[in-house]
Each structure stands twice: as structure tokens, then as C-alpha cells.
């Protein structure tokens, strides 16, 4: 009994630590004062009105989302093809590819970021949309490969041969037989890429065009320049993102935890 109470208490304290900042912002997104004051609270939707009227923040929100989906889409295509290629290649090819593919995963993000800055400044593409997309792809693609490879290993390899025997072209066999069987891995890789891209600050900061901002770079710079307290609408933005993300994550996880999905 004592043990049980202790367990619940430990969990409760840690959960409080994890969710207190989130809760604070959500609650005070309904209070329009510039600086949060715990003794004063007057309910209003003022910050949300300001948020949706703020052209700049809306543009940044849009930037962040399109960048995430573009980078995730490209990474998913490149990574899925890469995983299939690696899976069917001889060890001599597959091993070094796998090893190099691990570099961005293990590496510190700042090192990846400056390495790309060095490369792109040499070819005069530093701080362009190209360097930005490539930067995010370097971040995401290895994780797509890591999501897809296990699915290929689980797949029955005879089905591809069977499709060829039945007259399918290799491309048809790939799209109609292999891809459907590894689709859960591809989807997982895509979703992971979207979250990685949305979450990123450091690579974005080193590859983005000067006038382009994502939520991460905008908020960091607002704190740096001390303008975050003069833009309380950022509180509403954070609160909105917290709530939307928590709801999406809970729905996805509670709805379907199929056994096939679990061991990914």
C-alpha cells in the first residue's frame, strides 16, 4: 500500500514537472496581459484574435508547415528507395551505406548544421531554399531508412519473385507487391520526418534564407531580442500548438495500436 502511494506520488510529481509549463501557457493564453501575473487573470480571447490577425506569425506558421511536409515528402521518397536499394544490395555496398546513413543520426545537430554551411557556401547556395530543404532532408532521411528497413526484413521475399513469374514488370512488382507490404514503415518514416522537421532549430538556423523564419527560429530570436514579452500573441500560438499536438498524438495512439505496428 505504502509502495503504491509512493509510486503514484513519484509519477505525479514528474508529470507535474513535465506539464506545468505547458499548462501555464495554455491557461494564460486566455489572459491578455503582456507578462504572466499569477495573481491576476481576466478571461478573454484577445490573444487569439491578435494571433490570427498577425500576418507575420501566420506566414511563419505556414512556412513551418510547408517546409515540414516538403522535406518529409522528399525524405520519404529518397529514404524508401534507399532502404529498398540497400536491402537488395550486396553486403559490400549495403554496409558502408548503412554506416554513412548513421552519421546524421549520431552526430550533434550543430556539427551537421555547420558542415552544410561549409558545403553550401562553397557553391554559393548558402542560405537558400535549396540548402534549407537539403538540410532538413539530411536530418530526416536516415530515420525513414531506419523505419523502412525492418519492414523489408519482415516481408516474404517470394512474393516479389512470384509477381515477376506471373508477368509483372520489375517496376510493377515493386509498386504493387513490395510497397504495399512495407507501407506501415513508410508512413511511420514520413510522420517521424514531419515531427523532426517541425521540431528543428539548429539546422534551420544555419541553412535558411535570411528573411525566412520558422516557428523555432522566430521564437528563439524573439527571446534573444527581448521582443517575446511585447508579443503576447506568441503565448496563444504556443498554447494552440501544444493542444493540437497533444490531441493528434493521443488520438493516433489510442485509436489503433495494432500488433503489426508495435514492433516497428
Amino acid at each position, binding site marked *: 500500500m505504502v509502495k503504491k502511494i509512493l509510486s503514484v506520488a513519484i509519477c505525479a510529481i514528474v508529470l507535474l514537472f513535465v506539464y506545468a509549463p505547458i499548462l501555464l501557457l495554455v491557461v494564460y493564453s486566455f489572459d491578455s496581459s503582456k507578462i504572466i501575473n499569477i495573481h491576476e487573470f481576466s478571461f478573454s480571447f484577445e490573444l487569439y484574435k491578435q494571433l490570427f490577425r498577425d500576418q507575420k506569425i501566420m506566414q511563419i506558421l505556414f512556412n513551418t508547415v510547408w517546409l515540414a511536409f516538403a522535406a518529409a515528402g522528399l525524405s520519404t521518397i529518397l529514404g524508401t528507395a534507399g532502404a529498398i536499394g540497400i536491402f537488395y544490395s550486396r553486403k559490400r555496398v549495403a554496409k558502408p551505406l548503412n554506416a554513412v*546513413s548513421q552519421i546524421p*543520426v549520431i552526430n550533434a545537430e*550543430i556539427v551537421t548544421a555547420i558542415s552544410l554551411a561549409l558545403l553550401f557556401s562553397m557553391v554559393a547556395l548558402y542560405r537558400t531554399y535549396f540548402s534549407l530543404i537539403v538540410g532538413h532532408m539530411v536530418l530526416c532521411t536516415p530515420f525513414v531508412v531506419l523505419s523502412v528497413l525492418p519492414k523489408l526484413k519482415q516481408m516474404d521475399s517470394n512474393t516479389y519473385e512470384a509477381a515477376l513469374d506471373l508477368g509483372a514488370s520489375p517496376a510493377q512488382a515493386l509498386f504493387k507487391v513490395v510497397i504495399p507490404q512495407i507501407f506501415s514503415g513508410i508512413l511511420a518514416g514520413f510522420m517521424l520526418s514531419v515531427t523532426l522537421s517541425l521540431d528543428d532549430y539548429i539546422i534551420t538556423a544555419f541553412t535558411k534564407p535570411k528573411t525566412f523564419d520558422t516557428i523555432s527560429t522566430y521564437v528563439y530570436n524573439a527571446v534573444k531580442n527581448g521582443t517575446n514579452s511585447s508579443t503576447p500573441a506568441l503565448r496563444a500560438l*504556443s498554447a494552440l500548438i501544444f493542444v493540437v499536438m497533444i490531441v493528434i498524438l493521443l488520438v*493516433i495512439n489510442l485509436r489503433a495500436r495494432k500488433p503489426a505496428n508495435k514492433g516497428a
Partner: protein
Amino acid sequence: MQRFHFSRKQLCIPYGLFLALFVVIPMLLILFYAFTKETDGNLSFSFSNFIGFFTSRAKLSTLLMSITIAIISTALCLLIAYPIAYILARSSFRKKNVLLMIFILPMWINFVLRITALRELLDLIGLLESQNYLNTLIGMVYDFLPFMILPLYTTLEKIDKSYLEAAADLGGNKFTVFTKVTFPLSMPGVISGITMVFMPSMTNYVVSDTLSNFNITILGKLIDEYFTTYDNWHMGSMISIILLLIIFLTMLATGGFKDNEKEARGTNLW
């Protein structure tokens, strides 16, 4: 000319080129920049960045402080995460993974926003203005705790309960069962958690900047400064090489060269 034949193997060519161009060459460029210096527009081979780093008191103290912050953050994460992972793994609750989910869920929400939220909270309780080190540690733990909980939970959950029963049957009390059986069996999770937390807490300068009002410089920040403020890319590259060496050494020491980051980053979520 022979017709082009499609084969599945060829699908790795684009990815191979991509890795060569955007991973291998950039890493070689870091090496090149680290061991060169520029004088009057001419590049020459030089150890001056290396020597410059290890003879600079400021840089060495940044390195030392960075390592200290990373060690303390990692230890705190482990101390907090272990009981949580243990309780969750042992819980008789039917949907354990839902409980786990609640603990690690924030890791998929933009970390800059979460750290800024934490900043507001610290400001509210009056820590922001005075406690730069404490705030940075709190921030690192806040940001990286899920990366410690997840691998610990995964290994603790997998431990065969019959080992624990056998240990108890053979006369071990609860404490010895834990120290002699459970904890050693959970070592892979501990190691994977350490490698997941240690490196980011030396380099994620968004956390230290935001929570110390830009007063604390960690190694990642130093690299950033040499690129964006001082415009000395050669020294910046050298610091990166030193950072990579530290990462390499910690991984060698812990034997953490496995692809466990995927697991921790949560492909099992989606």
C-alpha cells in the same frame, strides 16, 4: 546501345549520392577547415586552431563547464527516469503503453516552444533572473527526460519476470533482487539513455540561451559563435572536431554504438 534495365539494387544510387554529397563531403570539409588557416586570402595547412583551442583559458573552461553540465543533466535524467520507467514497467495497469505515452508525449512538440514555456514558469517563480546554471540544468532535464525514460522502460519491460521470482526463491530480498538482477539486466537501457542525453546537453544551446538569458556558453554555442558572430569558420570547425572526439570517446566508453536512437526517438509511436 543496350536498353536500361531496372533493378531494385539501383534504387540505392540516389540515396548513396545524396549521402556522399551532403554527409560525407561536408564532414570532410569540417576536417579541412579545422586544419587550415587563412592569411591574406591564402589557405595553408595549420595546427594553429588546435593549439589555439587548448591554450585558450576561455575555451577550455567552456569545454569543462559544458562537460560538467552534460554529466549533471545526464545523472539527473537517470535518477528521475529510472523510478518512472521501473514503476511503469511493473505496473499491473492493462494499458501500460498509454501511461508511458503520457510521460514521453512532449518530446514530439516543438522544443523551442516548450523551453520558452519553461522560461515563463521559471520567471514566474523568480528563478530566471538569478539562477543561470540551475535553470540550464532544469531545462536540459526537461527537454531530454523522455529520451531517458523510453529506452529504460523498453529494457525493464522486457526483463523476464521468472528471473526475479527465481532470485526471490533463492533467498534474495527485494533490495538484492534489484541490485543483482534487475539493475544489471537494465544496463543496455541505461547506456542507451546516457548516450541519448549526454551529447545533446553539451550542444543544445537553445536550452542554455533561453534559460540563462544568453549568459551560459556551452560547446554547441561556442561553435555557433565562431560561425555567426566571430566569423572564424576554421576555429568553429576545430571545436566541432573536438566535440566529435568527445562523442566518439563517450560512445566507446559506454559501448553505445547501436541504432537505438530510432527506438528512443520513437518510431514505435507512429
